[in-house]
């Protein structure tokens, strides 16, 4: 039994400390996902609260068949979609939806490429801070796939099912996102070297 399941069951028996543990485990990651998707802090706060309200409302009927984190991010994903639809702020040009199979093939090649040693000159803090900044600049679809993979730790097929798109599209978006982040990091450590 994973820790989420334990905490949910304890919370459903009235333990607030169990809820505290559950909430804290996802607080920052989920908030970052929402705020990155809507790019408005106030809206992000509202949606984040809405997500947790829905979680609390539906938690007693949670089936424990799937992972809680996937369920949580699915709720958040739908909240973000509802918001973007209602506000008309869909940002992406949908260019990456036409990704060819060649692009998805290159993603696997990209994975095999090891990080350059010079990248390790950046501290973990500098690295994450830089990456989180770069993530904000990605197109919405790439950003979402990247965050669901890296931040939420979901599998590609889970992301595909959640977003109702093909796995090739997911891999293609991830490929673009990772390539873009690598580009920015290379630029970052070149700057780092010249200082």
């Amino acid at each position: 039994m994973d820790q989420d399941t334990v905490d949910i069951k304890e919370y459903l028996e009235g333990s607030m400390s169990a809820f505290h543990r559950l909430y804290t485990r996802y607080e920052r990651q989920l908030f970052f996902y929402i705020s990155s998707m809507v790019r408005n802090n106030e809206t992000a706060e509202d949606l984040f609260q809405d997500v947790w309200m829905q979680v609390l409302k539906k938690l007693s009927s949670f089936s424990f068949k799937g992972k809680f984190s996937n369920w949580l991010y699915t709720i958040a994903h739908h909240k973000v979609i509802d918001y973007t639809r209602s506000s008309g702020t869909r940002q992406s040009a949908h260019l990456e939806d036409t990704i060819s199979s060649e692009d998805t093939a290159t993603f696997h090649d990209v994975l095999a490429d090891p990080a350059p040693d010079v990248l390790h000159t950046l501290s973990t803090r500098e690295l994450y801070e830089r990456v989180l900044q770069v993530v904000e600049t990605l197109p919405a679809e790439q950003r979402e796939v990247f965050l669901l993979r890296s931040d939420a730790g979901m599998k590609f097929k889970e992301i595909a099912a959640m977003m109702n798109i093909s796995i090739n599209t997911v891999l293609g978006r991830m490929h673009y996102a990772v390539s873009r982040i690598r580009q920015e990091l290379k630029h970052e450590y070149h700057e780092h070297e010249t200082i």
Partner: protein
Amino acid sequence: MNIMNMKRSDPHEKIWKGEPWDEDAAAYMPRPSEPTRTAIFEAARLQAAAVTPKTFISRMIRWRLVPALGTVCILLLAAISIWYYREYRHTPVIAVADEPALEEMVEYVTSTYEPDEILAETTDSESGSIQDQFLAELAVAHETLASLEIDIEYDYFSL
């Protein structure tokens, strides 16, 4: 420390390859505001309070069920023990080792190895070797008797 493990937990490699980040990555992410957190916790507290009576009832049922089930188990165990005792109390554990059975077996063995009958049919020249044979057979009879006594004592016949 294992080099493979070091590689696996290296955030630089994970970011470079687009793998899921370590949990400590969250430390570099912003938190929601305090009012938002307070509102969520308040809702969670209300929800927890709403589910408590149901939990209380289920606990009460559980508390009543556990002793009841325990009592049933103990009674069942006692009934099985009494039945088993009654059924197997007179199993011939020692009864098999009764004197008549032992005596009967001794009589059989001694009559089988009766020395007089053997000696009566032999000449004097053969009597020395026959006596040796008799002694050997007597030793065998002793062994047989001894093992028979053990068998009877430990009730191997009842198996």
